[in-house]
């Protein structure tokens, strides 16, 4: 692993990178509006579920498959087919397009628009960073953006938000390690989710009368 490659990766996955991560709540806004997420504990549980058995896990598997050499267009089709609602599709499509465009503007390359985990995986192929670390940082970035939604709109104190983020770190590290040990070329066999409430929430978000977030 080289330090500059690790710094590139953290730059790409930082909230400052222009993919508008702050604009997407993944359905969490609907859960806060309906009162299902209303304090630090319910926020932490919700975010942990999305990471461990929701879109976080499936996205990380697709990212790892791309890193390991699976065809990017085939993985883009898989990510598109897996999106569970109009807003989930919009989120991964728009973030991926913005990510690829920015990376191409910085480093050259063709900037092909593909769903977010595929776009990140394609860019990270050039880095000398262990796949497990790429997956862990990807999941931590997703967690951070959801924690930020909770801090602003539950609302939670800043310190409580950071406590949640810290509490998720051992779980994210364990998950990334587990996923990286699976056969990344057989990604289809490992996909799977059990975030039924979160899947419903991304659909319920479409029906909210007042929406701050795009998803």
């Amino acid at each position, binding site marked *: 692993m080289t330090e500059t490659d690790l710094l590139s990766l953290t730059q790409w996955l930082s909230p400052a990178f222009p993919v508008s991560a702050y604009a997407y709540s993944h359905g969490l806004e609907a859960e806060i509006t309906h009162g299902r997420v209303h304090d630090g504990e319910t926020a932490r549980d919700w975010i942990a579920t999305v990471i461990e058995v929701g879109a976080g896990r499936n996205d990380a598997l697709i990212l790892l498959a791309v890193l390991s050499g699976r065809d990017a267009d085939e993985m883009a089709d*898989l990510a598109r087919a897996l999106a569970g609602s109009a807003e989930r599709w919009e989120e991964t499509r728009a973030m991926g397009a913005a990510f690829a465009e920015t990376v191409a503007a910085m480093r050259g390359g063709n900037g092909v628009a593909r769903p977010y985990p595929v776009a990140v995986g394609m860019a990270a192929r050039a880095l000398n960073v262990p796949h497990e670390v790429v997956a862990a940082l990807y999941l931590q970035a997703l967690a951070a953006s959801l924690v930020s939604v909770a801090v602003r709109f539950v609302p939670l104190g800043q310190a409580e938000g950071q406590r949640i983020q810290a509490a998720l770190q051992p779980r994210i590290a364990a998950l990334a390690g587990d996923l990286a040990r699976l056969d990344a070329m057989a990604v289809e066999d490992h996909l799977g989710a*059990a975030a039924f409430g979160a899947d419903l929430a991304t*659909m319920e978000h479409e029906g909210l009368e007042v929406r701050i977030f795009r998803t």
Partner: protein
Amino acid sequence: MFDLAQPAPAAAPQTRHQRVHGRAMVRLGTGPRAGVKDLAQAGSAKAMLPRMHGRAPEVVFLNTAGGITGGDRLSYTLEIGAGATATGTTQTAERAYRANGGVGRIDTHLALGAGAVLDWLPQELILFEGAALDRRLTVDMAEDAELVLLETLVLGRAAMGETLTRLHLSDRRQVRRGGRLDMVETIRLGADDLVRPGSAGLDGATTLATLTLMARDASDRLDRLRAALPTDGPVRAAASAWEGRLTARFMAAQAYPLRRALARAIPVLTNRPLPRVWQI
């Protein structure tokens, strides 16, 4: 090479039951009055075509073993030709019983020719304590075909107050339309998920359903479907449409109200009555 699929008699464990193997396949012809072109059945899987008196054909699959457990294999195939219209369903709920070693497997394959219309409305899958099941649904449909797809899972026999603690379910549903992968849903449910805290997971639900429409005009039908969904009460439901696909999701702590909600929503997408074998 040795054929590893053949169990060696000497190594056979003390099986408590005869392994269930069943395959049923129905192929309907083309056109609005399509008849049966091909029907094959083996083992405990059967397919029946009740007389429909002018209505579109209804193909009813049945597992005569009455359930599935570890090591069992069931396979259902339904193919309908260009321009055909049909409904596919199952005679009863499928029951996945405690698996004493091994994983049960159900494969379902659907194929729709150009302009064909298929409603695949099986009755629910009931998972009992200790069930271990892999399920695969694969669909190949023509670009302009139309498919309504229902999947309902019931966790435990709620009517008997059973709460699951051990479970393995891997449930993968995949649709290719015009050769392109257009829908994948994968459920992985294990013991951890049954006790996972918070509202993003099961959140106390014991019945889950996904109703999907794959059709070019799917988005145009979203408002009508939403109007048929429950807005409060025991069933949590919502719908979304994008990319020639409409999905509605349902979850509830009891099976019966969810079944009623489905009975209201399904005809909005199919424009046909529910399968006759359904008892609401």
